[in-house]
């Protein structure tokens, strides 16, 4: 089996695994739509008070909300992607089985996560976005070029998102329990990705720092690409740099971790 075909098959497996839970997906669609509606109202009030806050007009702010709800599960912004399974496998020792598979550990989990992302985007993300577009004024681009650029930014965002979660999941090799890590992941993910408030609204030096962190590559940058608020080269370079840095760090940590792996017997 060719290497390409192997990882495509793994990704397809990831897609199917999440596609199995139809009721859970429908529940997720409902929840994201409900939260989208609540957030949209607060943003409308905020932008009423101060038009052009953070360089967005009201329609752009509304678009940002629905994009956030669309990407919440897609990018596993508060966790709940494959890193959950990975942590559990490290904790129980089942990771040993993954290690003697004739496949690269990082690529294996990356493929699974990309499959998961794709399903969450189609199954869970698109509907709230469409609901938002129907009931609230949105600023959507009309040219195909911007949408194509957005898809590139989205793919890069998936890589960054996996990079962050893979690093945190590997820490379980040392911590042995993933509960605290998952909590850190959820807190940082929601706040620093700009799920509750766009990062370009964050004030002063704090805002500068937040916009430079890897989480900015998850929601803020794809949103800015879609809304035409950023240069493409700059956006892609920012995302690609973080993706490369995180994936390299993940690779280094992985080799350190697997050298010390001791599988509990049983």
């Amino acid at each position, binding site marked *: 089996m060719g290497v390409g075909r192997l990882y495509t098959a793994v990704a397809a497996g990831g897609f199917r695994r999440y596609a199995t839970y139809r009721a859970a997906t429908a529940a997720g669609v409902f*929840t994201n739509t409900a939260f989208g509606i609540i957030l949209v*109202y607060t943003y409308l009030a905020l932008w009423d008070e101060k038009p052009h806050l953070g360089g967005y007009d009201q329609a752009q702010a509304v678009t940002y909300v629905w994009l956030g709800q669309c990407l919440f599960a897609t990018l596993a912004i508060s966790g709940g992607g494959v890193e959950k399974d990975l942590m559990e496998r490290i904790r129980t020792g089942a990771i040993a089985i993954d290690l003697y598979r004739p496949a690269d550990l990082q690529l294996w989990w990356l493929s699974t996560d990309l499959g998961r992302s794709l399903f969450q985007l189609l199954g869970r993300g698109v509907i709230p976005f469409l609901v938002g577009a129907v009931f609230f004024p949105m600023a959507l681009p009309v040219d195909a070029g911007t949408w194509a650029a957005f898809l590139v930014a989205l793919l890069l965002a998936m890589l960054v998102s996996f990079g962050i979660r893979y690093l945190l999941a590997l820490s379980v090799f040392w911590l042995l329990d993933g509960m605290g890590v998952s909590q850190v992941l959820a*807190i940082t993910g929601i706040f620093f990705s700009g799920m509750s408030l766009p990062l370009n609204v964050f*004030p002063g030096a704090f805002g500068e720092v937040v916009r430079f962190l890897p989480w900015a590559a998850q929601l803020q940058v794809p949103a800015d690409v879609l809304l035409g608020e950023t240069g493409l080269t700059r956006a892609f370079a920012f995302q690609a740099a973080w993706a490369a840095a995180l994936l390299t760090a993940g690779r280094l940590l992985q080799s350190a971790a697997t050298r010390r792996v001791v599988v509990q017997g049983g």
Partner: protein
Amino acid sequence: MGERAREGLRAYRLIAAMWMRSTMMYRTSFALTMAGNLLVTGLDFATILLMFSRVDSLGGWSLPEVAFLYGLSATAFGFADLVLGSMDVLGTRIRDGSFDMLLVRPAPVLAQIGADHFALRRLGRVVQGAVVLGWALVSAGIDWTPAKVLLVPLMLGAGAAIFCALFVAGAAFQFLAQDAAEVQNSFTYGGTTLLQYPPTVFGKDFVRGVTFLLPLAFVNWVPAAYVLGRPYPLRLPAWAAWSPPLVAVVCCALAGLAWRAGLRAYRSTGS
């Protein structure tokens, strides 16, 4: 009825104490998750602070006034979350068949499932909400009267009861849709989130919906408007500020009926 309630409370207390003892075996882990809990809920309020770093009012309400709404919503929800917040394990228990075990025990099922995985760390939300509420009470410039002083604890209790009813109704719903546990988050977590913002922010039909269909407005919007001396949402009559306890009783009764119906419809996975 009274006998049954006493029995339920006793079972709840015993099971909750058991979970607390088990948590306390790992003190460091408990301290860390408790701190984490404080931080998560704190970030909630940080978002509001960030908003107010750019604007002076939201929907015509000042920061201390919004903090008052936030404190009430977060504290009331925190209590409900502490008492019944682990009820989403019900879906898992139904799926893996371990729910049957609860049915054969000589204690009310609702008390058993409510206390299941009782997590003291959820106290973090109550503490954080209470801190914000305390700050809001002194800085919102409230024109205090004895009636207003009385109304604050009253609405915290009623609010907690309304959220508890939501948790129980959500659990009853899981008998129907086992995988769809997330739907109840829209009402519980979504509910507490929307109540943190002034009613003037939301569309009129939306406010109608969360007043008459899902009576969340009685957790804080209506009574808080009385305390702050603001016009009531939807021009409700003056006595509406004192209706939360009544609304809470009705909600709990309906949730209890839903729970019974759900329990009766339960079919074991059989494995």
